[in-house]
């Protein structure tokens, strides 16, 4: 059964004014448990609006959303419970830190769930371990940490609520390359080890291609593509038309193919591309003379 199911959701803001904007147009999705989903779309495509619907921060103008089979707009539905089950990490989440020390800050979520200080602390320690913040920092002020550390603490703040689904809105924005890879690796590890369902919003196609099982592309409030990465990146020309792109590797593979090299154009990561090119190159050099055409 799917964890989250979105059915014909429309969202209009500023309804009945001159500024009326339809931010979501008939969006339907189903997200099975344990999937690693990438959500892409340029700024203003509706992806941020969509993720805020998933944990009830924004209410749809029409349509239904089901979490574990239950209609979240149902009469007695517990929204607060939903928010702890569908953890949402906003962009620059370190801007929400406020406590005097790291541990207390991470405890904020679990304490709001009604856990005792002891239980909350246990959860917090576990969450901090999961994101790789070492124990020596627990007593530090969160504001003294480096950018990457702060971000981990903020993510731990959401993880400590033990959500079923973790949604991250551009978790790597503003980090340096190593910091970026570290955070994404950590999330991938979490996904593998705990079977957490993860929805990753990102602008980096390279990152998306490396980590996710499925890509949802949003454009002008509607779902444009929803398929496996290879499938989606086959449409790289259409992606470009809506201000997006495929990973560099996709372009390389297509260009090589055009020039007559017999490579698999579905490769989306450096690893895959390397294998495809090496095997094509070997084949070519075994049957010498088979050169590229000059286009």
């Amino acid at each position: 059964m799917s964890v989250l199911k979105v059915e014909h959701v429309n969202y209009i803001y500023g309804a009945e004014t001159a500024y009326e904007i339809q931010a979501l147009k008939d969006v339907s999705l189903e997200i099975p448990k344990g999937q690693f989903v990438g959500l892409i779309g340029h700024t203003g495509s509706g992806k941020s609006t969509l993720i805020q619907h998933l944990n009830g921060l924004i209410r749809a103008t029409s349509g239904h959303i089901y979490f574990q089979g239950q209609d979240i707009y149902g009469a007695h539905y517990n929204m607060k419970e939903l928010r702890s089950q569908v953890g949402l990490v906003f962009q620059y989440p370190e801007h929400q830190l406020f406590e005097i020390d790291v541990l207390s800050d991470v405890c904020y979520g679990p304490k709001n769930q009604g856990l005792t200080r002891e239980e909350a602390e246990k959860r917090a320690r576990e969450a901090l371990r999961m994101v790789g913040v070492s124990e020596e920092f627990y007593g530090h002020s969160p504001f003294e940490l480096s950018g990457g550390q702060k971000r981990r603490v903020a993510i731990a703040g959401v993880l400590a609520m033990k959500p079923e689904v973790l949604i991250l809105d551009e978790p790597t924005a503003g980090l340096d390359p190593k910091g970026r890879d570290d955070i994404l690796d950590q999330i991938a590890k979490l996904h593998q080890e705990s079977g957490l369902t993860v929805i990753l919003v990102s602008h980096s196609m390279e990152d998306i291609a490396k980590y996710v099982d499925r890509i949802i592309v949003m454009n002008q409030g509607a779902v444009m593509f929803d398929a496996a990465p290879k499938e989606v990146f086959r449409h790289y020309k259409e992606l470009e038309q809506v201000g997006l792109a495929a990973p560099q590797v996709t372009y390389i593979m297509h260009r090589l193919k055009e020039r007559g090299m017999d490579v698999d154009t579905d490769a989306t990561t450096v690893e895959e591309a390397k294998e495809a090119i090496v095997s094509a190159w070997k084949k070519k050099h075994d049957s010498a003379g088979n050169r590229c055409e000059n286009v």
Partner: protein
Amino acid sequence: MIRTAKLVYDYIKRDEEGNVEEVDRAVDHVDLDVEKGDFVAILGHNGSGKSTLAKHINAILVPSEGTVWIGDMDTRDEGHLWDIRQSAGMVFQNPDNQIIGTIVEEDVGFGPENMGVPTKEIWERVDESLKAVGMTAYRHHSPNKLSGGQKQRVAIAGVVAMHPKCIILDEPTAMLDPNGRKEVIRTIRALNQVEDVTVLLITHYMEEVVYADKVVVMDEGKIVMRGTPREIFSRVDELKQYRLDVPQVTLLAHELKKEGIPLPDGILSIDELVNALCQS
């Protein structure tokens, strides 16, 4: 144009009595020489000292040791403070926190107003600067309604209107989406090529330094690598050690080379890789 000699900067943390508690060396004996018209990129991970270095160039910070010259002015010379700030314009990371005006054109005029430029000339400067960054159509807009990339272009126009000899951009694209990043980089390149403005770009996005004349890599306050983009990008493993990475094309070329495919070093573009592979 810009020259630093044995530049050292220490952040000093003091306790309540004013005694030195901790000294954190952010910039450590940096020698840098930027020629007029150059496009120099400074790479480095967060905390490598690159921003601290940038703040020395327009005298927001003054060296703990060593010297910084802008043209023939020493940044420590307070008599030249405003000349230095005018010669070396600075664009910062967060587009929201550097726009002062509530209307685009008024923000662009802010620098010249401070410099005491006559009204008529302010208008001329605002017109040409907005044109140079391609934001003329938005001159009467409120900055709050613009996209991140557009805001940064306004910030750049604000600096250009001061007629600086060089522009230092401190991670101008870190908070932007890919399209905004492209917009800003295109604008910077045009300024460098068309207007011959000296550019010092600080970033950790590798794609952006491909167009630079020179690349400098910083780590722990020191300059650890210098060279052309091609030279720098051919040293993939070394870059990784400094918490940096290379564009996917360069990485792929590097991996293929390791597999025994004969390819030249430091491939920077898709075209180069495709051509090289087809000819090998």
